[in-house]
């Protein structure tokens, strides 16, 4: 426990003005980082529009979009196909990547703060195995919680409803017993085991076709992005993230410990449940359209904290921008990989793992104890 001060000169009194100035600089740095990530994300969207297995020239993609916006109709069959590819496939997919990446990253920030655990992510409560079970029930057994839907719609609805089970379970438990973050994580693990065991059981008896479908659902893909899906996703994620970012200060306080939170006037139980509820709804919505895309929610917050520290008032928006950027870039790679492209969940896993390790090795500041 040596005193960090080496000599007397370090221990001088620092004037308020100097501190104020430096503090302001720090804040500017954080904002700058966020803006930079946002700008890069937008650039990423621009890049991904010209990326894909269907050969369309770099400049041509933008010309196609411009034409479409100007109401110029394509005249040839090839022109129609290209217009379809760029406008109906690539553009909604790029926008979806932005909002899904942002929502997952923000979910990660919140879950890590609420659980006070650096390994938490939006799926920690058991959401991914719950969603997988819901999807598998529909894909393999044709069982849809809301009757009369098509297979794809039924899968989406199932996934959403099942994703909400963990948070509902936790909310009920907290009503009767004060639950610590550790208990919540344990409950998440319990849910995960139960649900994934059931899923495995179903998959054992599935025919190979459905099995492949159910599996690729869980890997996570942006392939289902369309102009029809986008409004719901944008609306839910924007509202979710906005509400969460208004609670940045409370999240800081929650991260300091239950006792401190209570004595600083923050109702830990309520605050925690509210935050997790917001994250759960946002994540459940995202998951029902994309499956469970991993690693963005886990890694983005840590990268952000590496650069700008742990103040959640800045980490939340910064993570949103970085998450958006990460997912857009991952999708670029995903679209080109392999013979037919790969689901983006594979790419996030491939990038996320080493990125995490690099962070661990290079950390100059301990961003967790």
């Amino acid at each position: 426990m040596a005193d960090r001060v080496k000599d007397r000169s370090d221990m001088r009194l620092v004037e308020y003005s100097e501190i104020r100035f430096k503090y302001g600089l720090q804040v500017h740095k954080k904002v700058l980082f966020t803006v930079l990530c946002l700008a890069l994300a937008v650039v990423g969207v621009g890049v991904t529009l010209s990326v894909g297995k269907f050969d369309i020239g770099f400049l041509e993609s933008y010309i196609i979009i411009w034409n479409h916006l100007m109401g110029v109709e394509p005249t040839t069959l090839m022109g129609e196909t290209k217009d379809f590819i760029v406008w109906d496939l690539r553009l909604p997919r790029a926008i979806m990547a932005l909002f899904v990446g942002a929502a997952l990253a923000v979910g990660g920030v919140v879950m890590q703060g609420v659980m006070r655990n650096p390994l938490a992510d939006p799926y920690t409560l058991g959401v991914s195995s719950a969603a997988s079970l819901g999807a598998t029930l529909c894909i393999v057994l044709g069982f849809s919680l809301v009757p009369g839907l098509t297979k794809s719609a039924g899968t989406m609805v199932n996934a959403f409803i099942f994703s909400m089970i963990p948070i509902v379970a936790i909310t009920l438990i907290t009503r009767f017993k004060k639950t610590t973050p550790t208990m919540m994580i344990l409950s998440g693990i319990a849910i995960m085991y139960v649900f994934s065991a059931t899923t495995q059981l179903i998959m054992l008896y599935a025919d190979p076709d459905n099995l492949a479908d159910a599996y690729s659902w869980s890997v996570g893909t942006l392939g289902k992005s369309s102009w029809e899906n986008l409004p719901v996703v944008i609306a839910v994620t924007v509202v979710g993230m906005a509400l969460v970012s208004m609670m940045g200060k409370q999240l800081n306080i929650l991260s300091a410990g239950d006792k401190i939170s209570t004595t600083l006037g923050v109702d830990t139980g309520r605050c925690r449940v509210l935050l997790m509820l917001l994250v759960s709804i946002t994540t459940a919505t995202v998951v029902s359209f994309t499956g469970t895309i991993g690693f963005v929610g886990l890694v983005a917050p840590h990268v952000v904290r590496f650069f700008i520290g742990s103040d959640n008032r800045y980490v939340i928006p910064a993570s949103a921008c970085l998450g958006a950027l990460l997912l857009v870039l991952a999708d670029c790679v995903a679209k080109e990989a392999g013979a037919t492209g790969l689901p983006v969940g594979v790419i996030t896993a491939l990038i996320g793992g080493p990125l995490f390790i690099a962070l661990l090795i290079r950390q100059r500041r301990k961003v967790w104890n």
Partner: protein
Amino acid sequence: MRIEIKDLGFGYSDIPVLKNINLDLNNPQFISILGPNGVGKSTLIHCLNKILSPSSGTVLVDGKEVSEYTLKDMAKKIGYVPYTSGDSFPLSVIDTVLMGRHPHSNRRSNEADLEKVYEILRKLKMTHLALRSFDELSAGQHQKVMLARGLAQEPEILLLDEPTSNLDIRHQMDVTRMLRNLSHTQGIMVIMISHDINIAARYSDSIILMKDGTVFDVGTPEEVLTEGNIMEVYGVESRIITEDGHPHIILKDNIPDEETLWDPSESSCTMPNTGCLKG
């Protein structure tokens, strides 16, 4: 300000941790809570600020029951400095202390909050650490930051759980003296769980001595710190001398005749560092 504790009892299950606590604490003063480990000191102060809710009895702060205060109102009235920091994602020192302004501020922290934080850092001689990250500090500096956070709440009552245990003796005295001055000049009631009898004796206005979950004695240091009390509560023989007008406890290094083995169930061996020897 006034804290009235009537027949307070607390237990996690059937085993009571606190029983029959009755206290009437009045006016700004510096109060130390002393006692062996596990006697319920932390539990007592947790019952005062809504961290725990009592199993029986009542606690009134300024005439109002603690259970009736909202968390925010309680946070404005009573500040708390914990024994350890649980901060899992550390912020800068300024931001950590700024947290203490939360009960008073609304949406964003403003200029006035920053100025107040600076003042506290200056008083604690920590301005040179203002922009450092919390996890880059030593244990002693951690404690000072948490103290600063508690002070930032501008509370009427400040509860501290062994806030100086990791500081060197010079800083221990510094901080304790500062707390005493705080209570006298700012009109704050400071209640501090202390691990050092002598420093408590030197600076406290009142001492609450606890044993087995209840209040053994309460009063001025001279009244409470008697050789008889020390023997009963700590199981240690001592000699009290008066120095500079304050009682001073000299621990006598002896082992009671009957004890040749350390029996953990014997309460007299709960005092640390008194050499309960085996064999």
